[in-house]
């Protein structure tokens, strides 16, 4: 059989082949990615769309969770201050119920309790980044206003709705308690009882004062119970943050498996392609110029 006398197309194809391997290896090494366009691996590219969406979500969950956590820290320290001052009111009330206390002393006490009422009312109007935290979902206006016409001494302008924030797939965390569950619950009305105590100190009997003090204590207990909600939420967020950072790692490792280039493999591929390329080039350089003419006497050539 006659063999193909023209090796040039094959040599060119071989050089092109090794050069394209070099380019691929170089691309993988420089980008760190095995998949640089959808046709490199259509299935992995499609999965990467999901992966990128999920990592975006996890980043957003993390941002939102930390925002909510900051907000709850503010709520918690504010409630803690409320507890301290209400405790003060209770000791004032307990002292005021004592029959040895003079009227003028009671007047001073009443003023002190009124001051505490005002500070709790102020705390109940706590705002964070411009939105009020204890008005239910009516967060654009202060939920509580002092109202001397009302028997309770205040007016609640908020509603009873709650907001949730998604901080994980299917994890909706309730982020607020409406003020009427904390400060003005119909069963144990903290603000109302403080107002009542002030009134009792001003003009009531010692029994009135003792009763009112009891009411304040009940209100405080209720507030303390409700405050656990924020503690729980914060610990849930902390746990979720740990989970999310683990999830970020998982997603990154999944992305790397899907489209990442194995640096060792790419480097090996590059050096193999280089070797093959120089082998082809040197073989071509050796073979191509050789013909019978090189060996014939010059009389012919």
């Amino acid at each position, binding site marked *: *059989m*006659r*063999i*193909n*006398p*023209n090796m040039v*197309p*094959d040599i060119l*194809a071989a050089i092109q082949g090794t050069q394209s391997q070099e380019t691929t290896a170089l691309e993988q090494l420089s980008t760190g990615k095995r998949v*640089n*366009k*959808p*046709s*490199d*691996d*259509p*299935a992995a*590219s*499609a*999965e*990467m*769309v*999901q992966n*990128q*969406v999920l990592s*975006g*979500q996890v*980043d*957003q*969950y993390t*941002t*939102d969770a930390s*925002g*909510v956590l900051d*907000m709850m820290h503010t709520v918690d320290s504010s409630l803690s201050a409320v507890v301290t001052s209400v405790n003060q009111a209770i000791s004032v009330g307990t002292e005021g119920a004592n029959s040895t206390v003079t009227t003028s002393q009671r007047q001073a006490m009443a003023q002190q309790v009124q001051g505490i009422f005002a500070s709790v009312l102020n705390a109940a109007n706590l705002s964070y*980044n*411009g*939105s*009020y935290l204890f*008005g*239910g*979902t*009516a*967060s*654009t206006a202060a939920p509580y206003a002092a109202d001397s016409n009302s028997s309770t001494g205040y007016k609640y302008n908020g*509603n009873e*709705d709650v*907001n*949730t*924030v*998604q901080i994980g797939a299917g994890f*909706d965390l309730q*982020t607020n308690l409406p003020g009427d569950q904390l400060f003005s619950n119909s069963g144990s009305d903290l603000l109302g009882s403080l107002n009542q105590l002030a009134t009792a100190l001003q003009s009531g009997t010692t029994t009135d004062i003792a009763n009112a003090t009891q009411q304040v204590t009940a209100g405080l207990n209720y507030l303390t119970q409700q405050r656990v909600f924020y503690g729980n939420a914060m610990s849930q967020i902390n746990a979720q943050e740990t989970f999310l950072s683990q999830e970020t790692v998982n997603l990154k490792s999944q992305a790397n498996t899907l489209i990442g280039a194995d640096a060792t493999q790419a480097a090996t591929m590059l050096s193999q392609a280089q070797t093959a390329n120089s082998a082809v080039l040197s073989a071509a350089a050796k073979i191509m110029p050789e*013909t*019978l*003419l090189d060996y*014939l006497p010059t009389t*012919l050539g």
Partner: protein
Amino acid sequence: MSLNTSLIVAMQSLLAEQGALDATTNNIANVNTPGYTRELPVLSEAPATQYANYSMGNGVVLEQFQSIRDQILEQRIQQVTQQNAGAQAQTNALQQVETLFTSNGSDIGSEMSALFNSIMQLQTDPANMSLRQGILSAGQNLATAFHTTAAGIAQVQGGMNLQVTQDVGQINQLAQEIAPLNVQLANLKALGQDGGTVEDQLNVLLGKLSGLTNVNVTQTESGVTLTTGNGTALVVGGQSFALQTATGSDGMTHVLDSSGTDITPAIQNGDLGGTLQVRDTTLPGLTNQLNTLASQFASAFNTAHEGGFDLNGQAGVAFFSGPSTGSGSAANFSVAITDPALIAASSDGSAGSNGNITNLIAVQNAKLPAGSSPIDGYANIVFAAGVASANAQAQTSATSMSLQQLNDQRSAISGVSINEESTNLIRYQQAFAAAAKVISTIDQLNADVLNMIS
């Protein structure tokens, strides 16, 4: 046998060897000419002279030059060239298209994800105007991504119309060049002569034609008959038939035969066939998927949005606008509202409520009527674009390899070998020199005879 006879035999030998040297020279001259098939001098014995008791040979005759070719192999090469050119055209176009679906931060997937993330952020502070503005911007970015992608595909399709016109022009040009050669070749064959250069040229032109469209070659008495598509004649004998182009009602350039019949769908391979395949099947498929995604996503998102209340306590209005179904949904996808206060985050009408955001976020993972979630729907399009391009690339490299092998085979049969020609050069030179020696010897003999007389 006289001395003169010997002289004539020797002279014929000189002529024959010189002819053989001509063939060698021509072969060496055309060693790099594309489509050239090497020629062999066909030498045969001259008819012998019969004498009473013996017959005497009359030397050598150069009968003809024969081109060494395998016609079946040539046809196989033409077929694979058609497939290869078709795959190559698809690869070129689809590689442009797939970049539209490469994740680069501003593709549809990234922008869709950014939109939902900006909505999730609003959960923490639902009345915050800058967060709301962020959602509007993210929505506009998503719209831009839909526009860019749809326009990118349309642009490639538009470029392909130009390609169709150019291809058809080249096909017509080639058919015109082939027709006269076809007649010449038929005449040569009718005389029993070798096709030689004419056949080489014809094969080169057929190779070029194969790079453009599917060509069916039928051998007839009057040369080859070339048809494309489902039997549309390009060349019959000495006559060529020009294809035409016309813009169809779909705005695309269609291919018509010489009598004006639309043969666009019948053209299969070659650059024209590959181009039409991508333009009329692959890309419309992607555009349809994109339009379905855009319209169904907009409708699902609007439904969720309309279920909530805006910052002013009013019921939510449509967030996205655009055709509710079918074509143009991606190209006309847009954000319907400009006032960030109109974003319906609230579920109870109060400004601080974020209750409807859960419903908006849920759109991301809820199945659209097409059967998958918006993100999965987009991932499917990425997959489709990637697979189409990867298949075209695989087809290109597979046909390139088989084309290379076929060309190697062709070269093994028809290619010029410098070594072989050098060897022949020596052979013919030696024979020529020997014949010349014979002539001078006979000349000497004649002189000797004349000397005998004097």
